[in-house]
């Protein structure tokens, strides 16, 4: 068939293709959208940059080796460090992780793979409600549940309180990432004669592991900075103590105490403590990410 002539009026609608410059209106809108989203991205960076800059400016001058190696000095003496609080935070977060990660990941996997009906809905609802409970309320609850029966403040109680704060995040985000594992992986395993539990264990969880680790890390990072739930549970300690049934020092409580103290020296150390806490959390995430990087890769 011979090529038809353009319909009348058509050449008016089609602009020449090679003018070298798109229509003005389109370019203006394009610039607006790119500009607006770029600005938003920039605004997101600002608070982080401010926090980091502020902490460095205020905390760096007091940062020295002593800070990591020594105990707090009595009032009136300058110097000293917060070695006990650094170790204390690691122990508290360690206890919380030991409790929250197995339970949270287990519950999340169950919700995604096996959970049906009312029980699953109840678990999901509970997790959602838990994530809305203010952390100080969790602290008070653990005070009643653990501290009072034990008869004293303890690292264990602190760990339990932090675990309760970590749980809902871990449960819900584990469920999300496990659901993202393609159905075809499950079918492949089942068709090979894998029972459900082996399919979950061998195929689904490894495929979701990067996401699960990330969700645990986020929960862990949040928990390391929590102060309120520790005030009624781990309390704090100005001396060395590694016993989990005794009060234990922690960095957030240390920062809290030192920041409101009427001594300039303590206030300066609070800044340094904040800087160290931030570095610690950053270091932890980097470490976990590094160790969970999975082989094999293409």
């Amino acid at each position, binding site marked *: 068939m011979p090529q038809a002539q353009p319909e009348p009026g058509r050449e008016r609608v089609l602009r020449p293709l090679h003018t070298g410059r798109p229509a003005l209106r389109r370019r203006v809108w394009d610039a607006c959208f790119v500009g607006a989203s770029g600005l938003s991205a920039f605004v997101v960076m600002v608070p982080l940059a401010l926090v980091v800059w502020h902490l460095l400016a205020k905390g760096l001058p007091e940062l020295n080796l002593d800070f990591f190696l020594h105990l707090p000095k009595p009032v009136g003496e300058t110097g000293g460090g917060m070695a006990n609080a650094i170790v204390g935070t690691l122990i508290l977060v360690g206890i919380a992780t030991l409790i929250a990660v197995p339970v949270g990941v287990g519950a999340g996997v169950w919700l995604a793979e096996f959970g049906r009906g009312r029980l699953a809905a109840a678990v999901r609802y509970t997790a959602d409600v838990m994530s809305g409970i203010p952390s100080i309320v969790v602290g008070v609850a653990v005070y009643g549940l653990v501290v009072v029966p034990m008869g004293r403040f303890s690292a264990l109680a602190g760990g339990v309180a932090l675990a309760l704060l970590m749980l809902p995040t871990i449960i819900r985000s584990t469920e999300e990432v496990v659901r993202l594992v*393609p159905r*075809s*992986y*499950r*079918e*492949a*395993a*089942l*068709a*090979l*004669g*894998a*029972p459900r539990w*082996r399919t979950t264990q*061998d*195929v689904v969880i*490894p*495929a979701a592991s990067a996401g699960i680790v990330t969700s645990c890390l986020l929960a862990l990072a949040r928990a390391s900075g929590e102060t309120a739930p520790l005030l009624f549970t781990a309390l704090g300690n100005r001396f060395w103590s590694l016993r989990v049934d005794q009060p234990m020092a922690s960095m957030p409580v240390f920062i809290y105490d030192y920041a409101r103290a009427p001594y300039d020296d303590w206030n300066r150390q609070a800044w340094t403590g904040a800087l160290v806490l931030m570095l610690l959390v950053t270091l932890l995430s980097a470490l976990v990410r590094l160790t969970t990087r999975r082989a*094999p*890769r*293409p």
Partner: protein
Amino acid sequence: MKPEIRIRTHDFDLFYGAHHALKSVSLEVPANSVTAIIGPSGCGKSTLLRSFNRMNDLIPGVRVRGRVELSGLDVYAPGTDVVELRRHVGMVFQRANPFPKSIFENVAYGLRLLGVNRRAELEARVETSLRRAALWEEVRDRLGRSALALSGGQQQRLCIARALAVEPEVVLMDEPASALDPTATARVEELVLELKSRYTIVVVTHNMQQAARISDTTAFMMVGELVEVGETRSLFTRPRQKLTEDYITGRFG
């Protein structure tokens, strides 16, 4: 002599909730041959295939009626060990779905499920399976690399090797070449022909030329019913049913 029948369905019905997906299907699949199931999209051919290893069980709301027999045993009988069944009836899917593991571990996975953990035995059986799937020469020096780095056609042959590793009696293939380019398709088809001496193969395809090229028996389905089944050449040259003739001559579908 009448050939041995590996799979037999008798008046088999399947419902997805209220939807009657398979209607009184009676089909015999001869052992050590290739049976193709053809028909328009949504005719129930994949559903029928997935009834043979009970993969449909995974879908909520599925009900079945009638019998499906594997070597004379009713696979829907109460108390059937579905896990054991699937070890006898392997499956290859439409889209290659290797695990995000190494090439070696993909093939070894089924063996590990059977409790094979000795390195030497695993290595030997992985090699045999990869050779049977005509993939060994291409991957022999990179067994530790991720399976996801292979091409689409290689991935599909890997999935075939994975299914063969546990020595199933039957291999079900659900449109195994529909996502592959012509060269890769040709390789999979050659492979199917090589494998039929050892295994009973059932292939679902909507490519009629493919069915004609690789199968010994062809079954034609429409809207949940088995319209006609017969020796492939005679079904394509002298169909007995008007519907079959219309379909294979391209009048619809």
